[in-house]
């Protein structure tokens, strides 16, 4: 793979994480537990959609065959999406979506930090912009984890269950594939094992502060990075791509 195509694949994978998570969060609009949270959720999902647009546009530029952000978002089949399985998981209840955010954003923050130091200027610039948003998101989602974990008996029980349920989707974040390896070798990309250690420390700290228990080591699901998704994903994509697929070639 040429360096440009490698970068295109890596950038579009980052775009996939951002878009799929943003799309999940959009499903929560008008369903938040309070009005202030409604604003926060819309604001954060807007950040993710914005990040997806930047990553896809850059992927298209690196690829050099004229694909734009919407071609990536709306005209690719399921198996060409390379997002983490974690971000495509259904919203569930507020505890589930909070845990999903904390687990993902704790990883994403370190990943973006590492990417600001990579040798590809295009990616490092986008990472530098995104990191400011994600740092704030993580502060927000962590505060909710504290409230739920150390709130009532019910909220503690529920959010512990969320943590236990979603834990199996975290392994994928740290298992490098060829793309990760090449990104690291050629562009001084992120070291996933270093990020794993940082992530584990951060997550342990917030989980313990929330009076919750770290889940036991367990079997880890994977496949998102290779385009093998959970069953939930097809529905998300079908809904998102509905108009573009129904009216091919139309301008909106």
């Amino acid at each position: 793979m040429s360096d440009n195509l490698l970068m295109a694949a890596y950038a579009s994978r980052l775009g996939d994480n951002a878009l799929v998570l943003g799309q999940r969060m959009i499903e929560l609009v008008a369903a938040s537990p309070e009005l202030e949270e409604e604003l926060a959720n819309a604001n954060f999902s807007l950040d993710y959609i914005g990040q997806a647009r930047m990553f896809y546009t850059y992927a298209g530029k690196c690829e050099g065959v004229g694909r734009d952000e919407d071609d990536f978002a709306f005209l690719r089949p399921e198996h060409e999406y390379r997002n983490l399985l974690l971000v495509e998981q259904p919203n569930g209840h507020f505890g589930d979506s909070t845990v999903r955010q904390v687990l993902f954003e704790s990883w994403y923050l370190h990943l973006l930090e590492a990417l600001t130091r990579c040798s590809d200027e295009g990616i490092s610039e986008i990472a530098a912009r995104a990191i400011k948003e994600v740092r704030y998101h993580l502060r927000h989602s962590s505060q909710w984890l504290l409230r739920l974990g150390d709130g009532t008996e019910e909220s503690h029980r529920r959010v512990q269950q969320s943590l236990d349920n979603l834990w199996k989707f975290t392994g994928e974040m740290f298992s490098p594939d060829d793309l990760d390896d090449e990104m690291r070798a050629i562009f001084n990309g992120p070291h996933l094992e270093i990020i794993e250690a940082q992530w584990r420390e951060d997550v342990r700290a917030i989980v313990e502060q929330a009076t919750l228990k770290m889940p036991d080591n367990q079997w880890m699901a994977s496949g998102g990075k290779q385009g093998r998704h959970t069953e939930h994903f097809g529905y998300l994509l079908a809904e998102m791509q509905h108009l573009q697929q129904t009216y091919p070639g139309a301008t909106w």
Partner: protein
Amino acid sequence: MYTQGLDQAGKSDPAKPGPETREQLDAFQTRIDAEEKIEAKDWMPEAYRRTLVRQISQHAHSEIIGMQPEGNWLTRAPSLKRKAILLAKVQDEAGHGLYLYSAAETLGVSRDQMVADLLSGKAKYSSIFNYPTLSWADIGAIGWLVDGAAIMNQIPLCRCSYGPYSRAMIRVCKEESFHQRQGYEIMLTLCGGTAEQKAMAQDALNRFWWPSLMMFGPNDANSTHSAQSMAWKIKRFSNDELRQKFIDVTVPQAEFLGLTVPDDELRYNEETEHYEHSDIDWQEFFDVIAGNGPCNKQRMEKRRKAQDDGAWVREAARVYAEKKAAASAAA
């Protein structure tokens, strides 16, 4: 978004006079006539306060319920740019709801109470949100027509005699005019697109035209509280005046799009320089206000479900805050 139903009284009549003396009322009216702003801590007649609470809270509720019909197309927006714009718009609406509730709270009613009134069905919201959004073009039509009508209603409210409401409206109106332009721009794109897209735009206009005209409320002759609201300068123009203004501005916009306004009797009167239109189906309006619109039940169920599903979360936040307060008091 979205006032209207501003003249829709609840079961108890908010305009019913309070226990004030003639002197107090006269002095208050003198301040109003002098275009002074009434502030939260100023003396005001009980009926003035009640009218404003009703109007501002209805407006806030409309913003919150109004997130639903547009939210219905967020996951299916046809491009990432459209998705981002619509999301920003829906976020604005939540923000409008938030500061309108705050403006109403200055009148001594809590947000919890207002929300409880909405959920119990006691409080109203704009009837327009009880119509479904069936195609992407509806998102264009809502921006163009519904936000357009809302702006007509709301620009005069920037000069409303009650200071906190007037200031909230100045901010709301700035964002609304952006919403209106993005809606029209969606319509322009659709009308310049394929035959199917143009048909989608026409269908949206057909369905949203009349409900948009109804947003201005009943005809002046049937508008219960208009006279008092005008005297108090809560309201500056009558329902029919604003409706006419909206029609006069909007019909040429429809013509520019190449769309047909769904009214066979619509014609321009050279003498009056206004468009004349056929009668509005007020039965439909009163049906929707009374709860019998296509989506009344659905909108309220979604709102109640969000409230119910979030109960354990709000309770956790409350208990957590108490624990933290107790811990810092003990430290």
